[in-house]
C-alpha cells in the first residue's frame, strides 16, 4: 500500500512544473539550513568560521549532489531523460526541415498505401466467408459432359437425385438470383433478391438475427408468401425496427410476410447483393421439369469427402440419369468447385497485381528512407565525434540517436495510419458498383491491423537500421580521426556505395511500375476501341421491370412496351428508339435450337445461341447494320408468321455463303413451331467486350413477350437528360413500374466487367507509378546532391585549375547517369519478368511491347537528368576560394 502511494507520487512528480520549482526552492532552503547548523556546531567546537563551513560542506557530500538525489527520488528519472531526449530530437529535426519532411512523408506513404491496399485485398481474398466451416461448401454446376465452359444450373428433379447421395453431402441446397420490384405508396423500386430452397440458410449455418428461417413447410410448389430481409435492407427501409417481423411487404405485386432479418455481416456473393430472400417455390410443372435448369446448387461436403470424389460420383449419377432420361439429360455431366473459388474468380488477378505493385512501392519507400537516413547519419558523424570528445557518454549519444529515429518513425507512423484509414475509405468508395455486387464483403473492408503492424515494423525497422548502424559505427572511431577534414571520404565510401545501390534499386523498381501501368493503359485503350458492334454515342438506356399479377399476362406486357415506345418516339430530339430484353455486354439468356428440316442433333450436342427479344426500331436505333433481309417490325405480331433475325456469325456458321433468309429454325423449348429467318444483322458483343461475339437470335417481343426490357433511344442532344425523360414517361404510363439500371450507353460499357476489371487496377497502378517516380526523383537528387557536397573540394580545385562550367556539369551528371543507367537496365529485365503476371489482363498489347519499355526508360532518363542537373548547377557555382577555405 505504501509502495503504491510512493509510486503514484513519483509518477505525479514527473509532471512537475511549477510545483517542482517550488519544491526545489524549499529543498535548497532546507539544505542550506542544515549546513548552517552544522557550521555553527563546528564553530562551537573551536573551528574558525571559514574552516567550520568548509568542514560542514565536506561532510555534507555536496549540496548539488544531494539536491539531485532528492529530485531523482521525487520523479522517475528515466522519464525525465526521455523527455529531454525527445525535446532535443525534435529541435534537431527542425533544423533540417527538408530531410524531416521528406522522411516522414516517405514513411507515411509507404505505410499508408500498403496498409490500405492490403486491407482491401484481405477483405476480398483472405477473409474467411461468414458461414460455418466454409471450406466444406462447394458449388455444383451441370455441364455438357466434358465442356466445363457450358456450365449451367441444375433442374429440380436433378437436385433431388443428387440429394440421394447422402454419403457425399450433408446438405444440398439451391438459389436463384433475380431482380424484384418492391412497391409501396410512392411507387416501385428495383431490389435484388434471391430465391432459395428451404434448408439454404441452415446449410450455411446462418440464422436470422430476428424472426425465423425457412423450414420444410416452405418447400412447397409456389413457395410460401414469406420473405427474409437482409440487414442492409432492413436498416434502410424499416429504420432497423425489430417489430417488423410479421408485417407485410409488396414484392412483384404480391404481399409477402416478413419472416426474419439476417445478421449484419452476412452476405452470399454468388447471389449478388441480395436484399430479399424468398422460398424457391415454383409451379409444380417447373419442379417436375428436368430440362428447366433454374437452380444454382450449393452443397456441404461431408467430412473426408474431397471435391474430386464428389465430382466423380456425381458424374456417375449423371450418366445413370442420361440413360434413364435421354431427352433431357443425355450428355450432361457435373462439375464441383469450392465456393470460395466462385467468389474470388475474376477478381483475384487484378487484386494480386495490385498487391505486387504496392509491395514494390513499399520497397521503394524503404529504400528512400534508408538512403535519406544513411546520408544524414554520415553527416552527423562529425557532430557526434565532437560531442564524444566533449565528454558525452557513448551510451548517451546512441540513446539520443535512437530517440531521434523513433521520433521520426512515430511521426511517420501517425501520418501513415491516418493515410491508411483514409486510403481504405477512398479505395472502397472508388470501386465500381459492379464489384460490390460480386463481392459484398468489400463493404466491410476496414484497416487490417496485421497489415498496419507489418508495414509499420518494416518501414520503421528500415529507418532504424540504416540510421542507427552507421552512427554506431561512426561513434566508435576516435574523435581525432573523425575531425580530420580529409578523412570524410574514407568514412563515407562504403555508405556511399550502399546509397548508390539503393537508388539504383529504386530506379529499377520504378521502371517496373511504369511498364506495368503503361501496359495496362494500352490494354484499356485498346479495349475501349473495340467495336462492340453498335454505335454507343448519344444513346440513353433505361431498364424497366413489369411485375405483379397485373402484368402476368404476356399481352399486357406487350401493350405496356408498345405504349411506352410510342411515347419515347415522340420525345424531342429522339432519332431512333427500341427495346431489347438484355442489353449488349450483359450476357445471359441462351437457348438451344436446330435447323428445321435438318436431322436433329444429338441431345448432348445441340447448338445454342443467345436469345433476345426486341421491340420498336432497336437495330436502327443502335445503328446495327442489317446485312440480309429485313429487321423485325410491327408486322411480326400474333397475326404474322413466327419470325427471327440472326447475327452474321451464326448465319455464316449455319449456312455459309448461302442466304439465310427463308430458312427455318426450331427451338428446343418450343419445338411445336418453326421460326422463319427474315433477316441477318451485324455481330454485337452480347457477352464480354474482350471476347468474340456469340451466335445470337432475335425475336420480336410481340411474339415472345418479355416482362423486363431495356429501352434504348438515340438522341441528337444530351443522352443523360434523355434518360430522365424516359423515366418520366415510364412513370406516366404506370407509376408502380420499377425503373432501374439506367444510364447512357457509354456508361453501361464502362460498367461492364471486361472494362472495370481493368480500369480500376489501372488507376491504382498509375497512382503507384507516379508515387514511385516522385520517390525515385528524390532519391536520385539526394544521391547527387550528397556527392556534390562530398566532392566539393575536388570540384573547387578543378575550377581553380581552369575547369569550365561544362566540365563540372559533365562530371556531376555522369555520376547521376551511372546510377540511373544501371537502374534502367536492371529494371527492364525485372519488368519483363514481372509483366508476365499481367498477361491475362492485357488486351491488344504483348508483354514485350518495345514502345512501352522504351518510353519508360526514356522517362526515367529524363527524370534522372533533371534530378542530377539541379545539384550540378550548384556545383558549377562553387566559389573555389570559399570551398577550399577549410570547413
Amino acid at each position, binding site marked *: 500500500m*505504501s509502495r503504491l502511494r510512493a509510486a503514484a*507520487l513519483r509518477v505525479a512528480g514527473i509532471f512537475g512544473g511549477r510545483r517542482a520549482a517550488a519544491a526545489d526552492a524549499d529543498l535548497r532552503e*532546507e539544505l542550506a*539550513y542544515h549546513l548552517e547548523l552544522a557550521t555553527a556546531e563546528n564553530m562551537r567546537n573551536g573551528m574558525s568560521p571559514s574552516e567550520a563551513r568548509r568542514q560542514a560542506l565536506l561532510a555534507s*557530500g*555536496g549540496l548539488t549532489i*544531494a539536491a*539531485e538525489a532528492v529530485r531523482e527520488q521525487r520523479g522517475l528519472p528515466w522519464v525525465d531523460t526521455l523527455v529531454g531526449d525527445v525535446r532535443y530530437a525534435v529541435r534537431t529535426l527542425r533544423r533540417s526541415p527538408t530531410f524531416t519532411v521528406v522522411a516522414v512523408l516517405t514513411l507515411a506513404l509507404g505505410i499508408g498505401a500498403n496498409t490500405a491496399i492490403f486491407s482491401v485485398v484481405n477483405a476480398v481474398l483472405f477473409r474467411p466467408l461468414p458461414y460455418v466451416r466454409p471450406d466444406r461448401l462447394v458449388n455444383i454446376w451441370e455441364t455438357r459432359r466434358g465442356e466445363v465452359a457450358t456450365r449451367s444450373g441444375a433442374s429440380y428433379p436433378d437436385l433431388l437425385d443428387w440429394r440421394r447421395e447422402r454419403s457425399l453431402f450433408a446438405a444440398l441446397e439451391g438459389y436463384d438470383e433475380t431482380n424484384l420490384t418492391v412497391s409501396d405508396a410512392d411507387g416501385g423500386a428495383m431490389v435484388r433478391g434471391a430465391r432459395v430452397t428451404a434448408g439454404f440458410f441452415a446449410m450455411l449455418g446462418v440464422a436470422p438475427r430476428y424472426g425465423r428461417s425457412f423450414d420444410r413447410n416452405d418447400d412447397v410448389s409456389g413457395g410460401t408468401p414469406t420473405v427474409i430481409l437482409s440487414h442492409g435492407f432492413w436498416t434502410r427501409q424499416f429504420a432497423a425496427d425489430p417489430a417488423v417481423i410479421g408485417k407485410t411487404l409488396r414484392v412483384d405485386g404480391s404481399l409477402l410476410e416478413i419472416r426474419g432479418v439476417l445478421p449484419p455481416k452476412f452476405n452470399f456473393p454468388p447471389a449478388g447483393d441480395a436484399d430479399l430472400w424468398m422460398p424457391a417455390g415454383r409451379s409444380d410443372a417447373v419442379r417436375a421439369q428436368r430440362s428447366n435448369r433454374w437452380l444454382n446448387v450449393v452443397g456441404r461436403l461431408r467430412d473426408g469427402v474431397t471435391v474430386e470424389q464428389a465430382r466423380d460420383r456425381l458424374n456417375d449419377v449423371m450418366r445413370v440419369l442420361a440413360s434413364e432420361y435421354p431427352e433431357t439429360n443425355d450428355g450432361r455431366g457435373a462439375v464441383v468447385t469450392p465456393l470460395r473459388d466462385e467468389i474470388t474468380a475474376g477478381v483475384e488477378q487484378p487484386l494480386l497485381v495490385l498487391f505486387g505493385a504496392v509491395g514494390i512501392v513499399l520497397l521503394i519507400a524503404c529504400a528512400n528512407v534508408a538512403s535519406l537516413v544513411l546520408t544524414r547519419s554520415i553527416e552527423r558523424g562529425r557532430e557526434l565525434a565532437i560531442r564524444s570528445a566533449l565528454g558525452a557518454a557513448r551510451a548517451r549519444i546512441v540513446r539520443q540517436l535512437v530517440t531521434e529515429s523513433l521520433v521520426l518513425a512515430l511521426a511517420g507512423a501517425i501520418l501513415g495510419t491516418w493515410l491508411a484509414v483514409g486510403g481504405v475509405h477512398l479505395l472502397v468508395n472508388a470501386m465500381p458498383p459492379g464489384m460490390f455486387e460480386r463481392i459484398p464483403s468489400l463493404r466491410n473492408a476496414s484497416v487490417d491491423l496485421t497489415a498496419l503492424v507489418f508495414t509499420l515494423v518494416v518501414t520503421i525497422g528500415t529507418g532504424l537500421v540504416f540510421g542507427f548502424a552507421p552512427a554506431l559505427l561512426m561513434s566508435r572511431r576516435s574523435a581525432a580521426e573523425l575531425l580530420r577534414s580529409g578523412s570524410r571520404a574514407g568514412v563515407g565510401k562504403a555508405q556511399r556505395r550502399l546509397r548508390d545501390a539503393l537508388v539504383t534499386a529504386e530506379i529499377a523498381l520504378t521502371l517496373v511500375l511504369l511498364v506495368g501501368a503503361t501496359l495496362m493503359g494500352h490494354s484499356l485503350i485498346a479495349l475501349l476501341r473495340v467495336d462492340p458492334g453498335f454505335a454507343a454515342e448519344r444513346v440513353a438506356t433505361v431498364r424497366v421491370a413489369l411485375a405483379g399479377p397485373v402484368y402476368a399476362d404476356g399481352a399486357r406486357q406487350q401493350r405496356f412496351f408498345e405504349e411506352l415506345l410510342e411515347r419515347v418516339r415522340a420525345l424531342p430530339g429522339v432519332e431512333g428508339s427500341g427495346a431489347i430484353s438484355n442489353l449488349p455486354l450483359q450476357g445471359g439468356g441462351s437457348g438451344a435450337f436446330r435447323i428445321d428440316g435438318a436431322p436433329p442433333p444429338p441431345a448432348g450436342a445441340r447448338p445454342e445461341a443467345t436469345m433476345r427479344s426486341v421491340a420498336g426500331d432497336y437495330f436502327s436505333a443502335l445503328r446495327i447494320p442489317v446485312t440480309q433481309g429485313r429487321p423485325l417490325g410491327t408486322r411480326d405480331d400474333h397475326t404474322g408468321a413466327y419470325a427471327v433475325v440472326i447475327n452474321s456469325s451464326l448465319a455464316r456458321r449455319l449456312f455459309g455463303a448461302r442466304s439465310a433468309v427463308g430458312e427455318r429454325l426450331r427451338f428446343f423449348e418450343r419445338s411445336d413451331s418453326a421460326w422463319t429467318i427474315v433477316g441477318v444483322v451485324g455481330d454485337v458483343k452480347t457477352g464480354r467486350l474482350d471476347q468474340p461475339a456469340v451466335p445470337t437470335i432475335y425475336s420480336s417481343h410481340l411474339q415472345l413477350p418479355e416482362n423486363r426490357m431495356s429501352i434504348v433511344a438515340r438522341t441528337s442532344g444530351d443522352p443523360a437528360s434523355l434518360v430522365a425523360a424516359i423515366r418520366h414517361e415510364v412513370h406516366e404510363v404506370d407509376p408502380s413500374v420499377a425503373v432501374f439500371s439506367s444510364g447512357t450507353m457509354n456508361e453501361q460499357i464502362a460498367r461492364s466487367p471486361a472494362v472495370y476489371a481493368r480500369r480500376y487496377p489501372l488507376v491504382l497502378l498509375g497512382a503507384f507509378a507516379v508515387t514511385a517516380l516522385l520517390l525515385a526523383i528524390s532519391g536520385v537528387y539526394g544521391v547527387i546532391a550528397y556527392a556534390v557536397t562530398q566532392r566539393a573540394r575536388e570540384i573547387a580545385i578543378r575550377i581553380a585549375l581552369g575547369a569550365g562550367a561544362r566540365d563540372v556539369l559533365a562530371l556531376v551528371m555522369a555520376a547521376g547517369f551511372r546510377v540511373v543507367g544501371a537502374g534502367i537496365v536492371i529494371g527492364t529485365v525485372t519488368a519483363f519478368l514481372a509483366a508476365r503476371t499481367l498477361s491475362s489482363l492485357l488486351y491488344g498489347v504483348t508483354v514485350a511491347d518495345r514502345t512501352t519499355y522504351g518510353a519508360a526508360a526514356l522517362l526515367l532518363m529524363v527524370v534522372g537528368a533533371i534530378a542530377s542537373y539541379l545539384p550540378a548547377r550548384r556545383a558549377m557555382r562553387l566559389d573555389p576560394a570559399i570551398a577550399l577555405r577549410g570547413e
Partner: protein
Amino acid sequence: MAEKRDIQQGTLTLMILKTLDVMGRLHGYGIARRIEDTSRGQLELNYGTLYPALLKLEQEGFIKAEWGMSDNNRRARFYALTPAGRRQLERETREWNRTADLMAAFLIQRRPAT
C-alpha cells in the same frame, strides 16, 4: 575506532523511524545528529543519503513533514512519525529481531571437536 561505515537505505529508514519515535519532531539536521550520536560516530550521513530517504518515507506515508519555527526562530522543516509509520516501525523492529535471533543461532555453532 571502527571505520566509518556506508549505510544501506533499508536500515537507514528504520533508524530514522526509531529516531523520530524516541525524539518526536525533528528537522533534518537534528535527525542526522541523533543518528550519528547513537552510532557513536561510526556512521556518517551525507545529505545525498539522508534527504532522499526522508522523502521516500514521506512518499510512503510513514512520516509527515511541516514547516515550522526552530529554536533560533528560523524557518525549518520538521518531520514526525505518523500512525502508519509507528505501525511500520513495530513491524520492522520485529523483523529485525527475528533475523538477528536466527543468525545468532547459526553463528553460535562451533566446529565439532576432533
